[in-house]
């Protein structure tokens, strides 16, 4: 029996889908079986990031409606056999989801895979609520920026009231990923640092991802950035994936720029 992780953000455009693609692949690289499901119905995107857009035949709504089996709809990653993908419907809208159908789908996936990672739609309406409903854990993605953090807090609030686990008197594990950190801006005090963000949201940190041009390059090609050994964001996703698989990986301080370290060392010899 696997674990269901919902990846949520509150605000859109913070790198949620990128995080899902990279963590899914990262978990698979740790020898776990994983399925990533795009819950953003009407705005399918995960297929592009994974480079699987040409392989989509059936989507998750068709599976829920009984028009296709899970097996027919799953698409295997080109780069890792442990990773499979279930596409969002592009033609339908979010109203087609309902709790019973979602439960049936995620339960079946949970029985087959070690990790079931759900890419939630942005915002906090029904599509979002269905993504978090049966999750065992949630990963909240934020940028070090006020609107993203405020919206994330709202999303966490809904997670705490609407998830089935909480209704059953249990707790949903919540982990924060801070994405798009610009080290020299944090250093100069122009960007919120991770300590402040954790303080404000009062949840646990699972990883910090630095801003990296390689992310766009990777999405252009449909190859998640975790495959790029030279990418600092890719390395960050590798560390987070390992943590998700229960490995102890030290938190790297991506809020210090290399140049400043260099300046400091230079300063010693002055």
């Amino acid at each position: 029996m696997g674990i269901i992780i919902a990846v949520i953000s509150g605000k859109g455009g913070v790198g949620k889908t990128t995080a899902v693609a990279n963590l899914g692949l990262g978990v698979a690289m740790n020898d776990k079986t994983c399925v990533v499901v795009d819950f953003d119905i009407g705005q399918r995107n995960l297929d592009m990031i994974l480079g699987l857009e040409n392989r989509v035949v059936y989507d998750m709504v068709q599976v829920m409606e009984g028009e296709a089996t899970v097996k027919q709809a799953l698409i295997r990653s080109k780069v890792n056999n442990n990773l499979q993908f279930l596409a969002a419907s592009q033609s339908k809208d979010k109203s087609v989801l309902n709790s019973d159908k979602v439960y049936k789908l995620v339960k079946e996936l949970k029985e087959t895979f070690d990790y079931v990672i759900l890419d939630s739609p942005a915002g906090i309406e029904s599509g979002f609520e269905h993504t978090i409903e049966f999750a065992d854990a949630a990963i909240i993605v934020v940028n070090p920026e006020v609107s993203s953090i405020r919206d994330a807090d709202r999303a966490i609030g809904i997670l705490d009231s609407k998830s089935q686990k909480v209704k059953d008197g249990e707790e949903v594990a919540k982990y924060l990923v801070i994405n798009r950190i610009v080290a020299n801006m944090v250093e100069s005090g122009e960007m919120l640092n991770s300590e402040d963000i954790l303080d404000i949201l009062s949840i646990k940190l699972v990883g910090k991802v630095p801003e990296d041009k390689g992310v766009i390059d990777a999405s252009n090609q449909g190859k998640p950035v975790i495959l790029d050994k030279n990418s600092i964001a890719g390395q960050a996703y590798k560390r987070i994936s390992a943590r998700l698989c229960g490995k102890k990986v030290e938190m790297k301080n991506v809020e210090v720029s290399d140049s400043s370290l260099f300046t400091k060392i230079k300063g010693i010899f002055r």
Partner: protein
Amino acid sequence: MFLDWFKKKKSASVARDRLTIAIMSDRDGRNIYPFMDDMKAEIVEVVKRYIGVRGVEIHKEVDGEFEAISIDVLLDKNN
């Protein structure tokens, strides 16, 4: 130069202060307990047996060491 450096240092801490306040007031307006919706529905059900109900509002109030919830039951005009 020195002053410029100081000015820059501020924007992140301004963000932190503004966020802290905004989020605190957001949280105040939100359902504090996960069971709020269920409790509301049950209260409506009970009161409805005796008198018409339009809705129920529940607020959590904190005053020093005391915490309280206040429940407002809005009655139907036609009663």
